């Protein structure tokens, strides 16, 4: 299944990806970022991420 992978070693837990998510799919708590099934793979968070912690994956 295509989905968005979060690299916890790159993620700075800034929450900026949440504001560009129109699916209300991203949730940030302290150092845990999660992307729910509501994600429509629009790519906005991947483009936004200042450090490249988000990537499209298919497995």
């Amino acid at each position, binding site marked *: 299944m295509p989905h968005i992978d979060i690299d916890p070693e790159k993620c700075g837990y*800034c*929450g900026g*990806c949440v*504001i*560009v998510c129109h699916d*209300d799919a991203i949730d940030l708590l302290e150092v845990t970022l999660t992307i729910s099934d509501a994600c429509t793979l629009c790519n*906005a968070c991947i483009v936004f991420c*200042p450090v490249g912690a988000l990537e499209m994956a298919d497995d």
Partner: protein
Amino acid sequence: MTEQYDVVVVGAGPGGSVTAKTLAARGVSVLLVEKRQEIGAALRCAEVVGPRPEIRRFIEVDEGWVLQDIDELWLFPPGGQKIEKRLPGCGVLVDRKRFDKALAIAAADAGARVWTKTRATGLTREDGRVVVTLRHLGTDRRVAARVVVGADGVESLVGRWGGIETALGLTGVFSAVQYHLTGIDGPSGVLQFFFGNEVAPGGYLWVFPKGDRTANVGVCVSPACQKDRRALDYLNAFVAARYPEASSVEMAMGGIPIAGPLKSLVADNVVLVGDAGHQTNPLSAGGIMNAMVAGAMAAEVIADALARRDVSKESLSAYDQRWRETAGNLYRWHARLRRLYLKLSDRDLDRLGEVLAALIRDRQPDDLYSIEFVATLLRSMAWMLPKFRFLR
């Protein structure tokens, strides 16, 4: 068991804490919740606030958290022609961890209850009230209130739960990253800004002195303009070229709303403050003072609404009107300038730099912070008219 408060404030940044403090001072019962275990950390900010007299409206200035007084700005357009502007006392660089904590303590001292490591997970409206579900150390807690304030930052969900659409497209945000660099020799009291499509497409790169030969060095870029590089790539390129010997002792990153004001900051029982309400300046991307000003404003409106026993959207909309008059109307114009800026080539930016240098030379800070100045700037950019069609 459901606990009762008049107001629940979600998020203990500067906006949330000032809202809670102002409400508590008016005798309103307030619960201030922060999802993190430590208020103020981790840093997401370049830490410039100001000026001192404005900070004093909200909290006594403590030299312990003031790291630098700012007296001057240096702007560097891509061609390198430096623009200097003396603005004595225009702001201070603060230690945000201590600053945010001091504001939360002030809120508690005024009578607000503060809970950390407590996240809001949803809200429901029942009979004119609002029930906020909170989660603290793995346990659910329900709190009934008459108003919930979403001061929950760029990742705000309170607005969305309350029916206010706060998601933004990629042209409406900055993608930002910053190092706290050591071993930097530079002018103290001077904020330096670097512009250009090779340096910071759509945004700018900053060097803000922090004392002890350290500085916040960061970049904000428009994700709509960044091509195949990211904010971090732009920052690393600058640091490698300019400060190859410097070490970073802290890294911060974040998203900054630059789309201008929301249509409305309120819904029935719900009010947004600070980044959650897109109250950042679309040109400077600054937001701390705005959040505090808005928080105090929201608190006054909420306290009045509670006294009238009417916390409907209509009753709370006085806050919308006051925000528009204070900054919203100006920021609508700043957002238009920002959208135009995203289209400019480096050549355009150099010409804009020349225009700006002449325009700001004799103007006072208050004059720069006006719709009149935006109009003057737009008039002097008439040579860019073909690009104006992107403005709406």
